């Protein structure tokens, strides 16, 4: 992963960028307090979904807005203000994950795959294959058909919050924020094999939950 190290601290990163004369410095007569009114709730929800703690979410938003003030010069208006602020917030959230994963190691519960074992237990010669009542059903829909439906997102929300906190963190970074495996391992100090077990666990549990609450009901 040469040259693709994840910029964890965007303020540092943008200071480096502002040394670069090619990026025009914009005189922004912005009142950052306006950000609070325009994007505050959005950023708070973004952080709360990922941190599941109101105080931590509020702190992350505050830190992000403060770094945004520091790096105003580097914001060339290429993306919308909200996208720019969200980008900074993402880094603050990863910082938070990293700090908390230093304090609390991943537990056995996080890497426990035994919950899924029973899906593959069979009394007959086909032990190790899907049990008769657990066979996955065909979704028979396209994701595009459901993304506009509020009840689908309720199911996703419910199923995501049933995941252990740290499992959900890793899963969100990968599947919602679209970071690569290498980026996540580097940012959180995870081994490749731990990352794999956590993702496998998250996918199995989430899929099972969504299957029960959505795929089977939709049929």
């Amino acid at each position, binding site marked *: 992963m040469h040259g693709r190290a994840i910029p964890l601290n965007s303020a540092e990163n943008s200071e480096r960028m502002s040394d670069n004369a090619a990026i025009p410095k914009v005189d922004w007569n912005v009142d950052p307090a306006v950000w*609070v009114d325009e994007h505050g709730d959005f950023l*708070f929800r973004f952080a709360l979904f990922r941190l599941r703690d109101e105080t931590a979410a509020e702190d992350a*938003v505050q830190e992000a807005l403060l770094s945004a003030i520091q790096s105003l010069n580097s914001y060339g208006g290429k993306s919308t203000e909200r996208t720019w602020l969200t980008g900074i917030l993402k880094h603050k959230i990863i910082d938070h994950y990293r700090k908390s994963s230093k304090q609390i190691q991943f537990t056995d519960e996080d890497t426990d795959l035994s919950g899924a074992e029973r899906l593959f237990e069979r009394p007959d010669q086909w032990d190790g294959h899907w049990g008769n009542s657990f066979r996955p059903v*065909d*979704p028979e829909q396209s994701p595009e058909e459901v993304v506009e439906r509020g009840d689908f*997102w309720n199911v996703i929300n419910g199923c995501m919050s049933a995941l252990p906190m740290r499992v959900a963190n890793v899963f969100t970074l*990968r599947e919602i924020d679209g970071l690569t495996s290498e980026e996540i391992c580097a940012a959180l100090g995870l081994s490749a094999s731990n990352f*794999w077990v956590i993702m*496998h666990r998250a996918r199995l549990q989430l*899929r099972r939950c969504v299957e029960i609450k959505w795929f089977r009901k939709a049929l």
Partner: protein
Amino acid sequence: MKEANLKFTRFNNWVWRNLPGCREIVKIVTASMDGRLSWREWVLMKVHLFSCDSCVNFLKQVTFIRTALRHSEEKLDRENSDIRLSDESRRRLKEKLRFES
């Protein structure tokens, strides 16, 4: 046609009996979503998926969830629009920002 079906069933039986079962295959399927597979894993996955509808559905479901989540940002946000900063927090944030800038 009937004969072809029988051959197919025998092939499936052979795959199920002699190659890793669904429990192992779903591990390979999820691993394939985060990185490259070894050629051995890839072949095992393809052969198994060819003969197991349940694992094909598993793959469809996890891919479905991934695709939905990848354009979830604003949707999830809209769904939770009742969650807001409290007036107190809003005031505190603004004060802090004014002070710093």
